[in-house]
């Protein structure tokens, strides 16, 4: 059956055969009807023959119309890193990543309103035509310390391509390594020196033999060792958070749920201060774009401070309230001694303590607020510390609200 027959003629043949069969039936000739039936069958079998396809199979479709040719708009839109096309000093085209970074308003604006670094403005508005591609390193687009590789390439007499590539992750990793060694060695040396000192003393016959003395020294050594352990945990925590600082979190976390969770943990802990916890549930739901583990750690650190520094027996409050049209405020308030205004700006510095001995006695590592600050920065939020000496302190975190399931449009 190698005769090629396309559908319409085959169907016509079947129709004719059937028609003829009916006519012959009516004229009572069985043999003739059989012949018609058989030819109808042959026609059906022919019909099933498909036209043989091209020899090479499964190629992607060929462009057939002019609209298949890609244009600049779709090219820029497909790039993952921020990209702009600048025409006559204005941003003619920008992709999603660029709008998220620079703001939705920049499309159509003068490029100087989006990127105002002197190196860039000099190159594009310096009076000389842009003829060669350049590469610059810039700091301060998006987050204050975020560093970028910016490339400008001429596309024509009037159009330039601007590409941005994020360098901050690499830089953060390098700086972290250096910082970690510096911080860790300094703060770990003190308790370690204490432990070694006590070990020396216990090795000496007299002190070691006296049981009460030995027990007291061992208790101190255990305390110092646990302090070092907490310190190392916090340092590693801080390093991890810093490394991730420029990657936006991608989960949606409900702050109201988080508060309920932590409140339950605090109350069940059995700590004396647990009874003083008050939850001010201003909002039933407060979804923010965030990292569950980090926000949990943030709240834990703030609550821990309130419990440590608030006066025993006084209440400490966790509140979740709306802050503005698109932000929500999480705050922890205690009634402790308060903090003098001159210390406030430095509170989030690593290992900054107002009263070293008191802080160490309570078991603080000096890193709690530094960790909180970095988590807040990663979440593109704002940290605010208000305090009245003698009355108490409120630490607030303002975070952008998440819009629906896909929060990718909020920078």
């Amino acid at each position: 059956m190698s005769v090629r027959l396309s559908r319409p003629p085959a169907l016509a043949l079947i129709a004719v055969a059937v028609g003829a069969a009916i006519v012959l039936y009516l004229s009572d000739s069985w043999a003739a009807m059989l012949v018609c039936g058989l030819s109808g069958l042959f026609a059906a079998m022919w019909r099933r023959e498909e036209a043989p396809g091209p020899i090479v199979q499964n190629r992607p479709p060929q462009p057939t119309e002019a609209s298949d040719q890609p244009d600049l708009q779709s090219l820029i839109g497909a790039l993952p890193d921020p990209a702009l096309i600048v025409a006559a000093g204005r941003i003619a085209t920008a992709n999603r990543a660029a709008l998220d970074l620079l703001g939705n308003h920049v499309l159509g604006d003068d490029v100087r309103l989006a990127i105002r670094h002197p190196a860039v403005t000099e190159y594009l508005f310096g009076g000389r035509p842009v003829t060669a591609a350049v590469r610059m390193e810039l700091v301060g687009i998006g987050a204050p310390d975020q560093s970028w590789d910016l490339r400008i390439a001429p596309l024509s007499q009037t159009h330039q391509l601007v590409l941005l590539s994020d360098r901050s992750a690499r830089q953060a990793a390098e700086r972290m390594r250096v910082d970690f060694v510096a911080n860790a060695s300094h703060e770990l040396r003190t308790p370690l020196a204490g432990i070694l000192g006590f070990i020396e003393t216990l090795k000496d016959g007299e002190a070691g033999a006296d049981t009460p003395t030995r027990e007291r020294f061992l208790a101190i050594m255990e305390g110092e060792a646990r302090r070092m352990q907490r310190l190392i945990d916090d340092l590693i925590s801080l390093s991890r958070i810093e490394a991730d600082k420029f990657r936006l979190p991608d989960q949606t976390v409900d702050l109201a749920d988080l508060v309920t969770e932590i409140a339950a943990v605090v109350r069940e802990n059995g700590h004396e201060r647990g009874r003083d916890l008050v939850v001010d549930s201003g909002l039933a739901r407060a979804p923010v774009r965030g990292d569950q583990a980090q926000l949990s750690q943030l709240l834990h650190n703030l609550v821990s401070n309130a419990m440590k520094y608030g006066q025993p027996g006084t209440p400490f409050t966790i509140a979740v309230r709306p802050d503005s049209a698109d932000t929500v405020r999480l705050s922890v308030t205690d009634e402790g001694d308060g903090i003098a205004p001159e210390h406030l700006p430095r509170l989030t510095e690593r290992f900054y303590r107002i009263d070293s001995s008191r802080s160490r006695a309570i078991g603080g590592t000096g890193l709690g607020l530094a960790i909180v600050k970095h988590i807040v920065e990663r979440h593109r939020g704002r940290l605010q510390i208000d305090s009245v000496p003698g009355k108490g302190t409120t630490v607030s975190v303002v975070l952008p609200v998440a819009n629906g399931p896909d929060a990718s449009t909020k920078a």
Partner: protein
Amino acid sequence: MTEHTVKAFDQEIGELRAMVAEMGGRAEAAIADAMTALRRRDLELAQQVVGNDRLIDELEARLEKLVVQTIALRAPMADDLRVIIAALRIAGVVERIGDYAKNIAKRVPLISHLAGEEPLALLPSMGQTVREMVKDALDAFAARDADKALAVIDQDRAVDDFYNSVFRTMVTFMMENPRTISESAHVLFIAKNLERVGDHATNVAEMVYYAATGQHPPERVRGQDILQQQDQ
């Protein structure tokens, strides 16, 4: 007004705003470089900052000219006039921020001996906060963002507190180390300059807020005023 005239006017306003942004970028770079020069005791970088201030001044002069030309040519009314005047005022404030950065850079060669001592340790943090305020104020201007402007206004109190902290520390330091009084005075001036830059960033933010909402921002909480009598 014919469409042609309106379009040209829009272009002029766009150019004015872009020039303000350009000046802002230079002023930001000036503060950053001045503080880097201070931290590293980099005399060459400090020299560059002083030299580059001329460019900010030139931009301001060009902007003034464009403002006058636009007003003369277009005779703008109401909102249009307000926008142009706002651009002129903000440019003036930005130019002063540049001047403070230049002033800081000029003092770098004069305080090399104190480097590494406690008083200088406070300045980088203060500088960082001030730089962020300037950046946020200029970002708010470019985006016409009233909320961002409000956030800047809130931060001014932190800078005032910082300055008070530096002042107290320096006074103590000077009493204990009288031979360093000359250099310590320069450190104090640098701190004051940074505090003034913070105030100017707040001014820009207030003007942006007004331009965006038509209302003045709510009265801001001020930091403790050390000029007030102690026993109040």
